[in-house]
């Protein structure tokens, strides 16, 4: 269709001259990785905690955790992101709200994105942790209590470590999802990979080169995470369970 291909555009200097378009793209990749990893760490911590709460004998705590999951699962990620970024700073106590608004703009975008992705993914991690704990034979909990462990000890030393080894495969797909979902954060102006791709289109008018490069970088990220998690799966596999333990 008469498109003028020009791959050299990636190595050309940006208007301000201090770097190349490729470097912009790689800084976007770096942002995507930093954002995804920090949000993932948060999701694992919060998700495990809520997952445990969903299985405790106390009915009110279990209901609270179930409600938590419903809230984060039934509102679109984009809407959640806008609420964290635009709405929450207004509703916080004035001291905190202005504190947030006085931060560096990139820090504001990163913080909102991380908290948003972290909580969104934590609801999914929570469901996996719950499924893992509920898939364990009841005897494990009873044996732990019979040995004189308290309930928190039984969770900490017996149920949770065991559940985590069983749920590595579904967690892998959530981990992959967080990288893909991080592209949503381009909508609030965070210059991660997808946003850099769009910025390149605006500056160079070479949309295909830019989008192909960004897409390949996402595929590469996906492959790296998958290979890494395969190693984790191998090490975490519990003897006596078939394959992944599903």
């Amino acid at each position, binding site marked *: 269709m008469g498109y003028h291909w020009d791959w050299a555009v990636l190595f050309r200097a940006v208007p301000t001259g201090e770097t190349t378009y490729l470097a912009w793209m790689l800084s976007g990749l770096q942002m995507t990785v930093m954002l995804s990893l920090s949000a993932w760490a948060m999701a694992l911590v919060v998700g495990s905690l809520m997952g445990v709460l969903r299985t405790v004998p106390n009915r009110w705590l279990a209901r609270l955790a179930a409600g938590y999951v419903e809230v984060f699962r039934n509102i679109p990620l984009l809407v959640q992101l806008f609420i964290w970024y635009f709405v929450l700073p207004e509703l916080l106590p004035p001291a905190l709200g202005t504190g947030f608004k006085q931060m560096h703009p990139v820090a504001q975008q990163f913080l909102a994105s991380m908290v948003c992705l972290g909580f969104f993914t934590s609801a999914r991690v929570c469901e996996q942790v719950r499924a893992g704990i509920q898939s364990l034979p009841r005897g494990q909990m009873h044996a732990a209590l019979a040995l004189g462990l308290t309930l928190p000890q039984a969770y900490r030393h017996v149920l949770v470590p065991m559940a985590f080894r069983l749920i590595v495969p579904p967690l892998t797909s959530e981990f992959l999802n967080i990288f893909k979902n991080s592209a949503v954060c381009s909508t609030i102006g965070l210059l991660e990979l997808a946003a850099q791709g769009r910025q390149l289109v605006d500056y160079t008018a070479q949309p295909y080169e830019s989008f192909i490069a960004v*897409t390949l970088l996402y595929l590469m990220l996906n492959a790296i995470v998958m290979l890494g998690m395969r190693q984790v799966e191998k090490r975490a596999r519990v003897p006596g369970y078939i394959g992944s333990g599903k």
Partner: protein
Amino acid sequence: MYDFDWSSIPGALPFLWEGMKISLEITLVAVIVGILWGTLLALMRLSGISPLAYFAAGYVNLFRSIPLVMVLLWFFLIVPQFMQAVLGLAPTADTRLVSAMMGFALFESAYYAEIIRAGIQSVPKGQVAAAYALGMTYGQAMRLVVLPQAFRNMLPLLLTQAIILFQDTSLVYVSALADFFGAAYKVGDRDGRLVELLLFAGAVYFVLCYGASYAVKRLQRRVSA
């Protein structure tokens, strides 16, 4: 404390409803095309004919590895140029809705293909053997025996995916198309009432999606009973 002022919502309801219709249209088209094309992909993948199986596997894995935002950006880039070149459409024509529908339909097919593949594999092998023993061809066995049972088993999953899809349609925001969320954002931006409109949009999505997933849960109980 923040001073809430919800007064700009009632007047904007017709505009928001127009947006909601766009969200629902995209969802409906993507679900129908996604299930049809997804079923074909699943059948290809299970067909045992290697070029078809490789194509289907490649398609599914490619779409499942790329962020939806990126897929949409691709479609907003390609579809208008394609339509100008092939259909001779004027460059000024608004093709964003068509682009969004195509993007979502082709993207979701990959996810539907995986659900349907699992559904087909969940039908006991004896059923296929019995169909063959009765003299049915492959096509007849699939159409009359396997697929009806598979679809019955996976109906809850297909509907759950439709709810996720409905939520994801908000991402057409990247093309400034005024779906329900886009409309809410525009009204909020215009009236300086972003806080109220965003909370309102979140509440509407929550009520709709929570209600729908509750209905799916009840259906699941009836199907499995």
